[in-house]
């Protein structure tokens, strides 16, 4: 790969009154907010950094530009940090996730006709109820000899994909047989739903709400409730960058910490929505962005918004401790999902990659480490508790095919 020494030569420095320049890639989604706020509200400059934010069109581009050294860091799907280290069928991208950007923010939006198949699907915060309904819908379609439903995520190594798979399996549906799982880039979701190419999509804010506003989508489930209080996007950093420029990385984490605190203050929501609404950032109406930031989810066009607690969290403390601090158990959980669903096979390598990517060492060196947690677990909605001490045991207990042992039906 490109040597760090070469990059040091070409990297412009001291151009902005002595600020150190960092190039960071992002995807137009609400959860790029900490990066935008850090740049635009001066939190980065106060730490001696000038952030060059580069908008990208795909997660694949984000990863490739990290590999090539075009980016020092990037807005990344949380499981991607593990997948990239493993180089699954692809270039190995040695990245670490020293900072969690956010928890939550994804929803499952379905076509109006799928929504209309059942009167009452269950609550938008109740994966068990909506899953049980979906199982009945899938069974009824199969009995009528209809095509299986097609559900989309945004990338094979995303929380969206993992949420859908875990939720379907918990409902007694085989994600690889009872439905079709595909990837649809969010900008194409409305078209794909209109054309009947997909029946539903698990996507990050603001896309589900934009599908509702377009009259095409109906929101069924806030999918953050499937595996609550776990990372959604992370700051993915080149490992060599983290090793060679620890001061710059520490400064970036401090800037993101202040940006996160600003974002989490409800008084700043309107201003934040305006910042994100700009065409060069997310390019969506500020009103839709405000709702996503407040966790007010409008399930159907014109319907009153329903408040979903902890829909999207950027800062502070959650049930699993400080939101922004990487936990190895979260990385292990992501690796376990990839193993369970056959995206990779080598358990030892996957768990090693997870432990390396989700090390809290940098965070703990920059901030006061939190008191040691009593337990290190991930607790999905169906009680399939995942313990960092025994990831292998969880995998053995959760084989890919669960069609005959439905947990909730």
């Amino acid at each position: 790969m490109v040597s760090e020494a070469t990059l040091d030569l070409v990297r412009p420095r001291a151009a902005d009154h002595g600020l150190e320049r960092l190039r960071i890639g992002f995807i137009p989604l609400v959860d790029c907010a900490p990066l935008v706020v850090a740049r635009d509200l001066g939190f980065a400059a106060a730490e001696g950094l000038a952030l060059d934010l580069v908008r990208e069109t795909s997660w694949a581009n984000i990863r490739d530009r990290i590999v090539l050294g075009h980016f020092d860091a990037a807005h990344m799907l949380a499981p991607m940090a593990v997948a990239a280290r493993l180089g699954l069928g692809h270039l190995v991208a040695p990245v670490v996730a020293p900072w969690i950007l956010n928890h939550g923010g994804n929803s499952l939006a379905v076509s109006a006709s799928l929504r209309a198949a059942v009167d009452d699907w269950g609550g938008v915060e109740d994966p068990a109820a909506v899953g049980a309904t979906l199982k009945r819908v899938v069974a009824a379609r199969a009995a009528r000899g209809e095509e299986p439903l097609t559900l989309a995520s945004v990338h094979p190594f995303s929380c969206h994909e993992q949420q859908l798979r875990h939720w379907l399996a918990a409902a007694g549906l085989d994600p690889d047989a009872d439905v079709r799982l595909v990837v649809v880039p969010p900008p194409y979701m409305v078209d794909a739903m209109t054309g009947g190419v997909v029946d539903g999509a698990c996507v990050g804010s603001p896309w589900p709400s934009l599908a509702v506003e377009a009259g095409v989508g109906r929101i069924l489930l806030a999918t953050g409730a499937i595996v609550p209080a776990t990372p959604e996007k992370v700051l993915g950093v080149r490992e060599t960058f983290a090793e060679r420029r620890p001061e710059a990385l520490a400064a970036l984490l401090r800037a993101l910490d202040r940006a996160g605190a600003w974002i989490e203050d409800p008084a700043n929501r309107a201003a934040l929505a305006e910042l994100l609404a700009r065409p060069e950032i997310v390019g969506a109406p500020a009103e839709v962005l405000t709702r996503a930031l407040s966790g007010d989810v409008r399930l159907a066009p014109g319907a009153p918004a329903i408040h979903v607690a902890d829909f999207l969290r950027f800062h502070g403390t959650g049930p699993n401790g400080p939101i922004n601090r990487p936990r190895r158990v979260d990385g292990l959980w992501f690796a376990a999902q990839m193993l369970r669903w056959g995206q990779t096979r080598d358990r030892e390598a996957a768990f090693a990659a997870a432990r390396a990517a989700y090390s809290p060492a940098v965070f703990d060196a920059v901030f006061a480490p939190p008191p040691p947690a009593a337990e290190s677990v991930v607790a999905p909605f169906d009680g399939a508790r995942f313990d960092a001490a025994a990831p292998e045991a969880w995998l053995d207990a959760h084989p890919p095919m669960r069609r005959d042992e439905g947990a909730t039906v």
Partner: protein
Amino acid sequence: MVDVTLKILVIDENPVRSAILEEGLRDSGYADVVRLDTTHELLRRIYQIDPDVILMDLADPSRDVLEQMFQVSRMVKRPVAMFVDQSDTAMIEASVDAGVSAYIVDGLRKERVKPILDMTVSRFNAFERLSRELDQARTELADRKLIERAKGILMKSRGVGEDEAYALLRKTAMNEKKKLAEIAQSVVTAAQLFG
């Protein structure tokens, strides 16, 4: 040596660019070239076409759809890798810089694919250069029109001839260290405001 047996799929929303690339590949002896200009049900269509090499515009969000082909699960018929060799950074850099991504069926030897990638990179770069030149030509034309209008305004308001109006614009541009077109633009804007 060109390996003409390889099936090549070109995915590009820009029909002109993909036609240029197809022509280049065919001229080099690759007869089996398929073009897709739509992203509708992309993965299914890729499986139908079953290519050895996929060339895709880097700016296309559908790159994430193709990522599914990296999986090892039974959903994937032929595992696909991006690029041939982890160590071949130069080839990867050249592709990314040219704005193209390449996916290759796992196990294909580097020598078989390299001429295709080289051709793709050079055609993408040539297309980019042409687009830039076209943009530049358009800008120059627009600038010339703007300068004509500014000259006309000056001739009328100052009662001077064409040469003198032009000299006036040029002198102002030189004094203010600005481009002639910028001065012309401010003359036109001022005329609109005060006229």
